[in-house]
């Protein structure tokens, strides 16, 4: 069922459903305490039967099948039709900010996450973290019991202990009580904390995120003298200058920004216009890969570049400093920005110092961007603070022994806190330490109490999006491992342990919702996945006069190498370290899996005599770690980028021991970059696994790209580089085409290479995780991969992305060679792979020119872990050892839609079927549809002059085709 009609039909709030005792019992029955039946495979099997998931044991036809039980309900929950999924709206909070989701649920088991089209931060898309969240939900390594100094305990015992501490604190007004949370945007949680602080007047609340937005906030302070939340309207911008802001890659609004940015690059027929993107950055990012002009600068040099641009645009006191090598570039950029007053903007990255943000604000001001391409609002956070400072104070208090009771709500500060704060040591000075977390991690190891946290798919809560829009999070399932939400812990801290998360959130909105008819608005809010009218209104802010005088230009970036810290593109700050999907997903640019590395430019590598996989010792401010080197074309020279989040010691079976811990080098005063790094070669070698070894296209026209100018001159340039044989040029008779003709078009001009499609496919199609060693042998199972190619000089290459699913060739080379007909051609043009017929000759894969077929060399799928079985999509076979598999165009979705249509005696509507990769894509680069319908969106794309087939010369006649990539360089700048 596609999410569209899901929303119309069956997508309703879980609230009353969850209310019924029957449903609760059902959930309990389905997911009992792991101690009891939960781990017993038999009961698991029976349960899966009743779910109509047809997840029965595969029996060989040769032996009699064992007698099986089928188990009906005792009382059937209303509106729950076995075999039909329901969709519920909720949101995923990350770094405090919400991204809206629609979650598919099969008889109470959330199996797949989609974006919520209504939600401003999602618009129907999700990022890789959203897709992978459902795996974290079922992760068997999540903490499952309350523990006291490592021993089993219970929530009740904890409450008792907590009450004692509460009484103590009451006496001293909570002088010894400290609360440590991440960024909080949840109105309910904020309210709870406020009332807690009211109760304990001298208690303190600290917030800390390892990947914080402190600098943006501080920058706003410098420029406007107040906390301001800045929103960019990339859809309105024709010229964009990006100062190391990977705005497509991460941040609370990145999905929205991707949509807006790519909207500005779409070229259809008619008048063609495209925005132009300048990126200045040290380490290539996916945003940089979309740039029309990319300038590799050390992070420390970005400021002076910004000043030069600012000065040329007439910003007061920009103090550009002495002329440098990139002045012409700055000149041209400035002119381009100026020429598009009101339709241009400058965006600064969170890891750039406040002054760069201030400069960006100043430039945007002079460009008249406010209100047009840049919008300011009040801050979204409940209480914006300088989090690094906040943590510093906490550590100070701990050191001074002023802290008796520290409650750590989520997060893993022991692992993520800057080295120089020595958080771990000072923590030991706290009398009673409580940690709420999804895993028993580094932090809980040092706490007295560890409370299993309820996953956001298991708990009631609320959170704000980048523009303030509130979403009420509703649980898809009762806590699998008896976890508690932050709200419940806070309530316990306030002595109201009896309150359930549901009551707490509902009460808050009853009080503060200001809704006429509460019940109705509540239902609507849950149904839509957002609370109407909570978006923050635009706000006019004035620049402080001469603020730039105060912030003198940074002295020349110190000699020696620069080290830059970045959150990891797939495991973020380390909180996703135990998620196999994210670990195995190739990083967008390096294509590394299961590891992080010290990224250096080719020139620097040569200068220091480094090669890929060479282990070096990174010495920085008295600390040192050993890290493998990976050479990154386009990286700024004399700079080393390391990703945070790896090197976990207590992540779980998946994440522990992968990569090296870059936090060990991080300091509080320069959390993002600084000079003064030393590299020592160790002579050791550490094997890194990259899924793509060869980065040149060997001039094979795989990705066809041109400039906007070339395109205007000759729209068909992409089709003329390789001629494809005329139809019917094959010995075999053509396939009878009846009814629909499914096909796909992928717009390389939109694709940003984020890889969300890879994970969406993995979640939808029960694709197993194989691990580092197998991935190294070329055995990753991803059905769609994103190929990345470089073109041009290694110091500054053009970067291209190309998602490659099965091409569903009309003359498929795989079909003719299969001896048993396990891969055959369907009447609707699908290249069908039949697992249960496959004997595993692998001939089809050898003969596939696109190498999109994946083989189960071992029993890769996990057939034993009960919780993982519950995650699986019941409409897709779980493949066993020795069979080939590949992209099916999400045939389960096609069939579902066709069946619905046939029952209603109509044809499937255009856009009714949305493949998993298409649904997730924030850039809407992937379009699936029916070629036989000339008016379908797909048919129009296929008629586009940019449309071309990959390896067309082989006469495979792929149903999946590509739209050529376009670049829009500034004629003033050569190269």
């Amino acid at each position: 069922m596609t999410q569209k009609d899901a929303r119309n039909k069956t997508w309703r709030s879980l609230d009353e459903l969850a209310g019924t005792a029957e449903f609760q019992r059902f959930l309990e029955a389905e997911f009992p305490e792991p101690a009891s039946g939960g781990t017993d495979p038999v009961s698991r099997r029976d349960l899966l039967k009743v779910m109509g998931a047809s997840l029965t044991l595969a029996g060989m036809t040769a032996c009699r099948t064992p007698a099986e039980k089928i188990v009906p309900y005792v009382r059937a929950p209303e509106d729950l039709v076995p075999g039909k999924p329901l969709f519920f709206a909720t949101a995923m909070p990350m770094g405090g900010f919400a991204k809206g989701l629609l979650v598919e649920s099969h008889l109470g088991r959330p199996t797949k996450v989609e974006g919520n089209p209504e939600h401003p931060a999602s618009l129907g898309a999700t990022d890789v973290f959203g897709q992978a969240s459902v795996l974290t939900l079922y992760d068997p390594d999540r903490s499952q019991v309350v523990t006291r100094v490592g021993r089993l305990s219970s929530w009740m015992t904890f409450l008792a202990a907590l009450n004692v501490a509460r009484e103590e604190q009451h006496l001293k007004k909570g002088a010894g009580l400290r609360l440590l949370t991440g960024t909080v945007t949840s109105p309910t949680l904020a309210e709870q904390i406020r009332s807690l602080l009211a109760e304990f007047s001298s208690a303190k609340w600290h917030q800390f995120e390892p990947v914080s937005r402190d600098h943006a906030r501080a920058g706003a302070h410098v420029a406007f003298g107040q906390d301001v939340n800045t929103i960019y309207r990339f859809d309105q911008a024709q010229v964009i200058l990006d100062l190391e802001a990977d705005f497509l890659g991460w941040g609370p609004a990145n999905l929205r920004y991707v949509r807006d940015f790519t909207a500005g690059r779409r070229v259809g027929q008619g008048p063609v216009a495209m925005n132009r993107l300048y990126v200045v950055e040290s380490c290539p990012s996916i945003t940089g890969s979309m740039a029309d002009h990319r300038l590799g600068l050390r992070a420390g040099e970005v400021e002076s570049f910004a000043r030069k641009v600012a000065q040329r645009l007439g910003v007061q006191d920009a103090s550009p400093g002495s002329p440098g090598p990139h002045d012409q570039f700055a000149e041209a950029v400035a002119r381009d920005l100026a020429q598009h007053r009101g339709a241009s903007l400058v965006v600064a990255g969170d890891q750039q110092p406040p002054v760069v943000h201030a400069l960006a604000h100043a430039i945007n001001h002079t460009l008249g961007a406010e209100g047009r391409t840049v919008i300011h609002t009040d801050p979204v956070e409940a209480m914006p603070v300088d989090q690094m400072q906040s943590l510093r104070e906490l550590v100070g208090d701990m050191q001074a022994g002023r802290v008796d009771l520290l409650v750590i709500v989520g997060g893993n500060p022991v692992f993520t806190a800057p080295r120089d704060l020595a958080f771990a040591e000072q923590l030991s000075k706290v009398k009673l330490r409580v940690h709420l977390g999804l895993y028993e991690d580094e932090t809980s190891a040092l706490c007295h109490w560890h409370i299993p946290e309820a996953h956001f798919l298991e708990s009631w809560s609320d959170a704000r999006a980048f523009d303030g829009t509130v979403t009420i999070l509703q649980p898809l399932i009762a806590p699998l491992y008896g976890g508690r939400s932050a709200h419940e812990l806070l309530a316990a801290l306030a002595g109201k342990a009896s309150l359930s998360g549901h009551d707490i959130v509902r009460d808050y909105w009853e009080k503060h919702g200001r809704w006429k008819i509460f019940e109705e608005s509540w239902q609507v809010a849950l149904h839509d996945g957002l609370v109407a009218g909570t978006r923050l209104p635009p706000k006019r802010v004035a620049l402080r006069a001469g603020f730039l005088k105060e912030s003198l230009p940074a002295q020349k970036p110190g000699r020696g190498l620069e080290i830059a810290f970045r959150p990891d593109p797939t495991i973020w700050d380390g909180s996703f370290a135990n998620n196999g999907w994210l670990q195995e997903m190739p990083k967008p640019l390096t294509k590394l899996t299961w590891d992080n590395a010290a990224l250096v430019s080719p020139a620097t590598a040569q200068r220091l005599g480094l090669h890929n996989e060479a282990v070096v010792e990174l010495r920085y401010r008295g600390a040192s770690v050993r890290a493998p080197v990976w050479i990154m074309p386009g990286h700024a020279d004399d700079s080393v980028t390391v990703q945070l989040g790896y090197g976990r010691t207590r992540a779980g079976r998946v994440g522990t021991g992968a990569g090296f811990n870059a936090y060990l080098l991080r300091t509080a005063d320069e959390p993002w970059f600084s000079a003064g790094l030393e590299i020592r070669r160790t002579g050791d070698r550490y094997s890194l696994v990259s899924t793509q070894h060869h980065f040149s296209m060997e001039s094979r026209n795989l990705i066809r790209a041109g400039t906007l100018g070339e395109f205007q001159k000759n729209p068909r340039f992409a089709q003329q580089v390789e001629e494809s044989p005329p139809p019917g040029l094959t010995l075999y008779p053509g396939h009878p085409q009846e009814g629909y003709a499914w096909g796909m078009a992928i717009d390389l001009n939109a694709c940003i290479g984020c890889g969300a499609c890879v994970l969406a496919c993995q979640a939808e199609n029960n694709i197993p995780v194989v691990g580092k060693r197998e991935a190294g042998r070329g055995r990753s199972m991803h059905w769609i991969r994103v190929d990345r190619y470089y073109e041009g000089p290694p110091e500054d290459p053009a970067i291209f992305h190309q998602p490659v699913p099965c091409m569903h060739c009309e003359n498929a080379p795989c079909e003719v060679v299969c001896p048993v007909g396990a891969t055959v051609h369907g009447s609707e043009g699908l290249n069908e792979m039949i697992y249960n017929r496959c004997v595993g000759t692998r001939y089809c894969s050898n003969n596939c020119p696109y190498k999109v077929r994946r083989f189960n060399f071992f029993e890769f799928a996990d057939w034993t872990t009960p919780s993982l079985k519950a995650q699986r999509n019941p409409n897709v076979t779980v493949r066993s050892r020795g069979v080939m598999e590949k992209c099916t165009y999400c045939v389960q979705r096609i069939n579902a839609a066709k069946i619905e249509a046939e029952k209603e005696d109509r044809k499937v509507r255009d856009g009714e079927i949305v493949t998993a990769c298409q649904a997730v894509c924030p850039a809407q680069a992937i379009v699936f549809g029916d070629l036989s319908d000339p008016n379908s969106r797909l048919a129009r794309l296929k008629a586009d002059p940019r449309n071309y087939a990959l390896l067309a010369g082989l006469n495979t006649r792929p149903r999946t085709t590509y739209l050529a990539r376009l670049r829009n360089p500034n004629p003033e700048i050569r190269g």
Partner: protein
Amino acid sequence: MAETERDPRTIELREPPVLAPGHSFASVTDKIGGIVLSRRTPRAWMAGFAVSFLLVMILQVAIAYLLARGVGIWGIGIPVGWGFAIVNFVWWIGIGHAGTLISAILLLMHQEWRTSINRFAEAMTLFAVACAGMFPLLHLGRPWYFYWLFPYPSTMGVWPQFRSPLVWDVFAVSTYATVSFMFWFVGLIPDLASLRDQARHWFPRGIYGMLAMGWRGSAIHWRRYEDAYRLLAGIATPLVVSVHSVVSLDFAVAILPGWHSTIFPPYFVAGAIYSGFAMVLTLAIPLRAVYHLEDFITPRHLQNMAKVLLATGLIVAYGYFMEALMAWYSGNRYEQFMMVNRVLGPYAWVFWAVMATNVLAVQACWSRRVRSSVPALFAVAMLVNVGMWLERFMIIVVGLHRDFLPSSWGMYYPTIWDWATLFGSIGLFLFLMILFVRLLPAISIFELRQLVAKPEYARSKT
């Protein structure tokens, strides 16, 4: 040995004779039959048996582990989906060609020098085909469903996919195996009979007696025998060509650069005979040494085989040349890259090794001195064996590891289990071979008798 009288016919024949002079019916029968019946088993045999048996055990372990864990224990992956297993398969099938060729084709061409090598050449064929037949099964992801490749009325209501060369393989190989066996067995009958008659102990008599199927050597028996034998020869002859042609289609039918080539069938057949004869030499030389059969496997045989080796070697070399030429001439980007990658790529060493062994080494056979030097021939034969294995590696692995999309290029690193299966299969082959020479007449007794009967040998009796 008494010196032979000057006789025009014997003077004509400048090469050494196909049968050393001075043999009578009895001497032939004793010498060969004796190996099986009377003579005590030589040490060399024991040693060989021990070694090959050990290897067979290794093979067993490798197969057991393979079935338990899956083909992932090998070095294969994507893009290189076929590794040692298929290399070995093609290699063994190739080796399995000499036997039938010698027996059938040379028989029809009245090459009497075939007589003393055809028997064990045929046995070799059988055992090689057995080894080969093992691999297509083992390399399957789900070997227990191998029977789906056969057309039978299954409850699924579906049939094999007859456009696939793998299905053709099933028929080609199984037919070949059957016919070669028949041919070999029919050829054995008269000798089995004479073993029956020679044997003293009741047990061998019983066994050989049964196998001899009541052969009494009456005139009518002989006539039927001759008909049957020639008939089988006639059937076997086209198979020699067809089998390896079909095997070559596994590759020629695919669209992969380095596989997709029309020259493959003849080029594979030549290669097969080439490796076959190399293997015959590698077996014949130790055999005649161990059992002192220099009289029957004379320098004449060795020389002729060397000539065949040279001839087929040249055809193979021509095949290599044509591949390169066509890659260049096609003007096809991928073909050209394939060739360059073969010669200069990461697997260049394989290519040059193949050139050294299959093309260069065999050229030594131009010289009469090499042809008549047993150690030299043995060395050449060994090199060719290795070379032909490497050639298949070059075609399969090097062809696969870099195809159309550079993004999915990769390498192939064999694991310990790959090696175990390779040497294990060699062990199995030797094991069967060694049992054969011990239990059955390794040289056709009655055909040698027929030779002895011929005047130019007969007259040289003392």
